[in-house]
């Protein structure tokens, strides 16, 4: 017997749009964080805004929870289904409705893949700045829900800095328009509040993005160091000099080894740390700034410095960096990607402490991080087949988050809280802060149906069952950043 809810879904959606078979539902059980799994009772493949409204209204009427989902690349378990709930799949809601080169905006549906926006905007010499490592597969809808970041956040900000307006289906099925097409607003910044809501405020069905002109020139330098602290010190000197690079990335020894094994980027073989710094902008400015940058790097004691001679070499520098996460899979059957933030000046301290904790516990940790904005991504290696290994790795991951908080940072720079970090939200915010966020949530979703169970701490301990990389990751389609 189908439940009245499934029967109602069946009358409104064709069999092609409604998945209910066990085999069909399996692929929606988890997302980029494979540690959490839950099987939805159905998946609605939305093909229009009206489909989303219909599905949300049915959930509202029947009190059934729903999770909107794009490509399922969340690393915080943000798109894991809710038990007894449905998934509203948005991948087919993937039209780029408009690219307006005069106003420099793109209007897109939530299922549009991040990189597609830049590819389509390129003919107007424009691009979409936020560039999470999964940008070739992750969707704008998911980027909006979790305020995705990338390698350029110090200078350009995160997703929220590039969303000008959006149309959202609220959890009660009503449709609201927030923000607009202008860079400026009057009255409270409601679209700013919506971005990063982790799906708790409903489903964005149309998003207006700001596009930026493609820089005239990029200049990229790679420096190898004997100690990771020296690379961190170089970053501090660059910031103190008044330069504002678009990206500053550091990889440690273990991460370099993994990247070399995976993509042969040709990184200096004996380096204990690699720093990649990139300047971009008008040629005459970048040329002058690049000379200063190289002088600062020369004085920072590198063992080797390479300047990208052309775009091919620049992309090679980046290829190693961007593949580092999935490459770590070559060093270990399992690993946890952590995402914490510390004040930039305390990066060295944080890395030293992470290394010490790892050594003490016999756990290998590779470090890849956005040094410009203090965003750490420690990769904690373990073997899920060893009894207790996952729990030990989880414990270390949690202790790293607490370290970030102790140093004055945040429990997440760009992955969001999701399922993974719910318990840590209460360590970053006071009970009053969380109560006020709860009130906001309840005011917008009184029944708690939209992606419920994410972000806020709960009493229940989730079951961890992960082993091995995500199937998409194994295929090299996504990477964990």
């Amino acid at each position: 017997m189908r439940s009245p809810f499934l029967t109602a879904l069946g009358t409104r959606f064709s069999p092609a749009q409604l998945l209910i078979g066990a085999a069909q539902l399996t692929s929606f059980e988890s997302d980029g964080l494979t540690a959490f799994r839950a099987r939805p009772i159905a998946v609605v493949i939305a093909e229009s805004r009206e489909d989303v409204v219909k599905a949300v209204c049915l959930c509202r009427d029947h009190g059934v929870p729903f999770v909107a989902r794009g490509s399922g690349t969340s690393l915080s378990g943000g798109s894991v289904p809710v038990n007894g709930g449905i998934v509203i799949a948005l991948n087919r809601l993937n039209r780029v409705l408009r690219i307006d080169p005069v106003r420099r905006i793109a209007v897109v549906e939530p299922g549009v893949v991040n990189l597609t926006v830049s590819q389509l905007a390129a003919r107007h010499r424009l691009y979409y700045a936020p560039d999470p490592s999964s940008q070739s597969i992750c969707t704008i809808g998911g980027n909006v829900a979790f305020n995705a970041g990338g390698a350029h956040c110090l200078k350009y900000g995160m997703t929220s800095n590039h969303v000008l307006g959006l149309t959202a289906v609220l959890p009660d099925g009503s449709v609201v328009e927030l923000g607009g097409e202008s860079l400026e607003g009057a009255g409270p910044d409601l679209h700013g509040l919506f971005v990063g809501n982790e799906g708790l405020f409903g489903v964005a069905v149309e998003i207006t993005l700001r596009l930026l002109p493609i820089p005239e020139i990029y200049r990229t330098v790679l420096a190898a160091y004997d100690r990771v602290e020296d690379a961190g010190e170089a970053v501090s000197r660059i910031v103190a000099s008044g330069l504002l690079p678009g990206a500053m990335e550091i990889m440690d020894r273990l991460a370099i080894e993994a990247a070399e094994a995976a993509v042969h980027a040709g990184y200096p073989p004996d380096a204990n740390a690699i720093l990649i710094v990139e300047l971009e902008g008008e040629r005459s400015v970048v040329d002058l700034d690049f000379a200063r940058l190289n002088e600062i790097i020369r004085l920072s004691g590198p063992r080797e410095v390479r300047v990208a001679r052309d775009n091919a070499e620049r992309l090679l520098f980046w290829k190693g960096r961007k593949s580092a996460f999935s490459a770590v899979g070559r060093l270990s059957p399992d690993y946890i990607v952590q995402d914490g933030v510390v004040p930039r000046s305390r990066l060295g301290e944080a890395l030293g402490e992470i290394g010490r904790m790892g050594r003490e516990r016999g756990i290998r940790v590779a470090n890849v991080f956005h040094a410009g904005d203090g965003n750490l991504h420690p990769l904690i290696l373990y073997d899920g087949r060893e009894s207790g290994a996952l729990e030990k790795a989880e414990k270390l991951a949690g202790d790293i988050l607490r370290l970030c908080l102790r140093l004055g940072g945040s429990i997440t720079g760009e992955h969001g809280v999701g399922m993974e970090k719910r318990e840590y939200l209460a360590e970053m915010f006071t009970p009053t802060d969380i109560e006020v966020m709860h009130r906001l949530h309840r005011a917008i979703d009184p029944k708690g149906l939209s992606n419920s169970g994410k972000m806020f701490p709960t009493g229940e301990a989730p079951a961890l069952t992960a082993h091995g990389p995500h199937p998409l990751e194994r295929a090299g389609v996504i990477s964990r950043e």
Partner: protein
Amino acid sequence: MSTMASVAEPSVPAPKSVAEVVDLVAKTPKVIAVGAGTKPVLSSIPGGCAPITMRSLSGIVEYDPGELTFTALAGTPIEEIGAALARHGQYLPFDPPFARAGATLGGTIAAGLSGAGRQRYGGVRDFILGIRFISGLGEQVRGGGKVVKNAAGFDLPKLFVGSLGRLGILVEATFKVFPRPRAFATLCFASENISEALQLIENLKTGSFDFEAVEILPDQSAIAVRLGGPAESFAARMAAAERAACRPASRLLNDADAAFWQNLEPAIPASAGSILAKVPLTTTDIPAFDSALAAAGARRRYSAGGNVAWIEWNLGFEALESALRGRGLSGLALAGPAPRPMIGAIRGETFLSRVKAALDPNNRFPEF
């Protein structure tokens, strides 16, 4: 009904600590916080409301130039912050307006105002990282964080940009700052009318220029663009911009550049009957809207490449509101005879009413 200019009176409470703000909110059924009063419409006191002034809750709490962040109390004057940043070669790139008149950090956030410099890297919404505020229930609440990248919890800092003192009382904020370009230079291109001005801007867009500011100045029959960076780069870049624009420009360097932008900053209109308003729009709106403003005899300029109009309107609030509504625009009245700050509809009003109910369920702060 509003009364004006009462915030400087000694009877207006001026809390010196966050705890005092909490006490005042708890014992005042209707309250609005004001700063230095540089935007008189925003600091006017709605009927039945008691004002409190945030002037004494002032000072930079933390500033580490190496972090490119600072934290300051809400009543801190923008000028004081700017001076502290300048000592380390840093700045708030969005040129907070009314700084020289004494505008405070909290007032700038609550008003949601950015100046000409918002063109390059974004406005107040793009530089705010964290806030502390007092809710309508007297709770002390923190949102966001103190680091330049953070995705934890709802983005309350952005919500408070433009909140007009109606969602909570800001007591502290953390901002990102940037290194200040070593030098600036400005190019002023003559443009006879608005369509020529817009065409000029289109032409300049073909050249991959990273302008710090792009202003359309109908009152001066000109557009102005500002360059920042090493002074050695200016000669080549100015020549390139003139080539892209297909015309020469008057070039302003050093003090002339600084004076030019100071003169452009919004200010309270000289005429008491004139309303100073900010109207967000896009370049598509400008041609028709500009004709209407010209016909109404309004002084005006379009900032951030045509994304916001600053208007001095002489024909009364209702006429301004209907001019905006007819075009699907809304705006913010800052000075002059206006019964309320918001002009026209707030987009997402139903969403906002739920947000308001969560943060200020008893309407201790004025309604929008």
